[in-house]
């Protein structure tokens, strides 16, 4: 593994609120995305990797170089770690020109060839003599990336690169990051709190909760099979219900909550066990009354009254009240074809394969209430 992180750090502030970060993950030369609510300790993790913060205990290893090891008393200074760090506000030096900023980390002084290469990659030719205050947000970000990469870092850290930039810049950044990944083989750690960016960018997704890690896996895995209610909420699985296992069959389990539903079989489930189950809003199917129900969807049919309709542009959100209170997301063209309106009663089908059972253990560790 090219990046190994296993750290523990306690922060105390004046209001006597104690914050403990306990994080452990590893990755290859790939994009690893730290995803979670703000205040979870994601930036603190990056600062520990960069050497700007010092963990109380643990170990950080990049490409067989030990950056930090509390047992062996190793703590390499940030200057010697060779980390490329893109700060959230880019931290471009306002008193230096673009060229001076990019060359800031070069010990050999002006290296015109490398500078040219960076200007090429990030398409920032012609800006060399400008000051950061004379650049657009996207240009600033690319200059900051050039400054971080020109020193040939061992690892690249990106703190919320997708926040506070417009849509076009975001598309461009996605392209630039792809280019960087093809160009250099180093681990890239990216922080985001946007589920869409997390899903599209990550090879490995690390879901943070307040002070620690909730789940690690591929984005596909985590979005379809969140391990806890917390993760489910973070990845947009907004329909979550409680129930008791009523029956275990060969092809699935029956869960009794407010209604009876059939879910895919899960190992080691016991009859009578309390479980949580959920379904993504985009996996709820609204049935057309003018057509007969297909075989695949004949299970888990419920009806409800549309309470609220929210247009998100490409998709619509429906909130229904009835057998189950559901959030439904559907493409606009489907919404328009179905001629739905507020107050109408509709029937929906929760496809068995789309239902996910969360077996949460009751020892909920200090999770703030608003996340539940």
């Amino acid at each position, binding site marked *: 593994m090219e990046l190994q992180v296993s750290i523990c750090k306690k922060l105390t502030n004046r209001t006597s609120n104690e914050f403990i970060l306990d994080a452990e993950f590893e990755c290859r030369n790939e994009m690893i995305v730290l995803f979670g609510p703000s205040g979870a300790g994601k930036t603190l993790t990056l*600062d520990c990797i*960069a*050497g*700007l913060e010092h963990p109380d205990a643990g170990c950080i290893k990049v490409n067989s170089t030990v950056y930090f090891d509390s047992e062996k008393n190793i703590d390499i*200074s*940030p*200057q*010697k*770690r*060779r*980390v*490329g*760090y893109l*700060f959230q*506000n880019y*931290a471009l*030096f*306002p*008193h230096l020109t673009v060229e001076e900023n990019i060359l*800031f*980390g070069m*010990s050999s002084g002006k290296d015109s060839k490398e500078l040219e290469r960076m200007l090429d990659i990030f398409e920032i030719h012609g800006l060399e003599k400008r*000051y*950061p*205050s004379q650049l657009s947000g996207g240009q600033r970000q690319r200059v900051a990336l050039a*400054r*971080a990469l020109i*020193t040939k870092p061992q690892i690249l850290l990106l703190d919320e690169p997708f926040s506070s930039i417009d849509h076009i810049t975001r598309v461009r950044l996605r392209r630039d990051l792809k280019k960087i990944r093809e160009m250099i083989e180093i681990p890239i750690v990216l922080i985001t709190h946007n589920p869409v960016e997390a899903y599209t960018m990550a090879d490995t997704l690390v879901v943070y909760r307040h002070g620690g890690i909730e789940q690690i896996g591929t984005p596909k895995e985590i979005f379809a099979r969140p391990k806890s209610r917390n993760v489910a909420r973070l990845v947009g699985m907004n329909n979550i219900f409680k129930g008791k296992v009523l029956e275990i069959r060969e092809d699935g389990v029956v869960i009794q909550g407010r209604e009876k539903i059939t879910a895919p079989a899960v190992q080691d489930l016991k009859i009578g066990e309390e479980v949580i189950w959920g379904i993504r809003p985009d996996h709820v199917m609204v049935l057309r009354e003018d057509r007969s129900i297909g075989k695949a969807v004949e299970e888990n049919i419920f009806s409800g009254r549309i309470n609220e309709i929210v247009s998100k542009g490409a998709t619509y959100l429906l909130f229904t009240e009835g057998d189950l209170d559901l959030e439904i997301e559907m493409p606009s063209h489907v919404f328009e074809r179905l001629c739905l309106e507020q107050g109408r009663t509709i029937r929906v089908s929760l496809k068995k394969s789309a239902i996910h059972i969360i077996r949460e253990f009751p020892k909920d560790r200090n999770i703030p209430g608003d996340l539940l």
Partner: protein
Amino acid sequence: MRDRPYCADMVSSDVDSMDYSPLVLSLWISLVATIIIAVFGTLTAYVLARKRFFGRTLLDAFTTLPMILPPTVTGYYLIILLGKNGIIGNHIYNLTGWSIMFTWQAAVVAATVVAIPIMIKSAKAAIESVDIEYEKAAFTLGKSEIQTFFLVTLPLAKRGLIAGLILSFARALGEFGATIMVAGNIPGKTSTMPLAIYSAVQSGEDQLATMLVILLTAVSIAIIYITTKISKTDRY
């Protein structure tokens, strides 16, 4: 001289033979004090702004003290420290046979001690206003703390530092109480402008006093004018 209205004397022949040594002395002493203040004031301010250590609040309070204390009190403490029998002064005297008391160097010490809190206060505020993220960025780009200080922190805090230096210089120029305690009022040696003005008024030389006051006012205005010009030349 007293019985004539002194305004009439303003353009008399005395002016030509005026002794400029108080002005030269004042500028020299203030300049040396300001250079010392620039180095140690900035250093102390950086430590106070960026470092967390035991006794930090105490150091902060201690460096502010000369601003609060009456200058004569500060002067008295300086005598205790630097006098021939003083805590430090006695060692210097024993080693070299020289005492700093009643020399221009003593006036520099007095001006420095009285004016340095102003520099520390404004430099600390200026350094604190520099986003620490810039320094962190410089660290990850391989720059040591000293390099970062000179390449990043200092240029970004420049305005506040210059402002602090101007105010300190002005304070040093006007220093009276502590100076008279440790340096006396020896004409041509330690008699700076404020002391010379005081002496002139005391001895009834109103014409001289007026000239010195006008001179000091002119110098002060000139300093303010020049420094506002300088601080307007930022490119970014």
